[in-house]
């Protein structure tokens, strides 16, 4: 069964380019604005997901599956990053009793 792509039905690729850029910039601003380390990690996940969205859009647009394999690997790396990041965060919280990244400058050695 062959399904028609949405790009053949009139949705432009520029729409997904703008959407994923917007999501990436929201994630970047979130990293700069928020000081809670958990929300920082969540904003990084948001940025990774915006890249995934653009990769899938171009993969569908060009009819090649390689982009979706890369999305799969990005998900693998994001899962590994989230586990290690959160365990470091729990560790830091045990010692400092805060998740404020502004107060993490007291971690000397």
């Amino acid at each position, binding site marked *: 069964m062959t399904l028609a792509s949405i790009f053949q039905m009139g949705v432009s690729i520029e729409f997904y380019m703008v959407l994923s850029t917007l999501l990436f910039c929201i994630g970047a601003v979130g990293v700069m604005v928020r000081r809670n380390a958990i929300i920082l990690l969540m904003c990084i996940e948001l940025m990774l997901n915006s890249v995934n969205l653009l990769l899938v859009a171009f993969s569908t647009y060009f009819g090649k599956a390689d982009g*979706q394999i890369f999305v799969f690997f990005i998900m693998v790396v994001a899962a590994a990053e989230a586990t290690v990041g959160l*365990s470091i965060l729990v560790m830091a919280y045990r010692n400092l009793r805060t998740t404020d990244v502004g*107060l993490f400058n007291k971690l000397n050695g």
Partner: protein
Amino acid sequence: MSLQLITALLGGVTVGSALMVVLSKHPVRSVLYLVLTFFLISSNYILMNAQFIAVVNIIVYAGAIMVLFLFVLMLLNLKKENEPKTSLTIKLVSVISGGILFTVFIAALKDGAVIASSGLLENNNQGLVENLGQLLFTKYVLPFEVSSVLFIASMVGAVMLAKREKQTID
């Protein structure tokens, strides 16, 4: 309802819930908005006929990673009142620099002309499991195996970090 309207609506809601991730004061609310964002992104994948990626996105991101975030939030027991505050100057500067980043990205993408390839025509089944599995276990089999090593390393690292050391706690 036309397809353009559906995608525009979905995109608008996605951007709105991503904004709420950054703007909402309570961390748990932030996590829930991020789960909503992931579901909306998955619906975009389904529209683009990338069914495998859509399902994996829901299972891995909305199912596993965000539950991990929720568990850590529950363990840390953060209160709304001791949520760290950011000064107005930093907020202003970050919003301006984010806007500049957006402008630069859009300008760069606008110049890069997108040329429609011949693949645009008939084959739209590249997002199905059969096709992706074929590619994953032939062309990309080495990165696939290396990623399992990465998982082992991160698992060992997480266990080592989470283990309570006797001498560091008073």
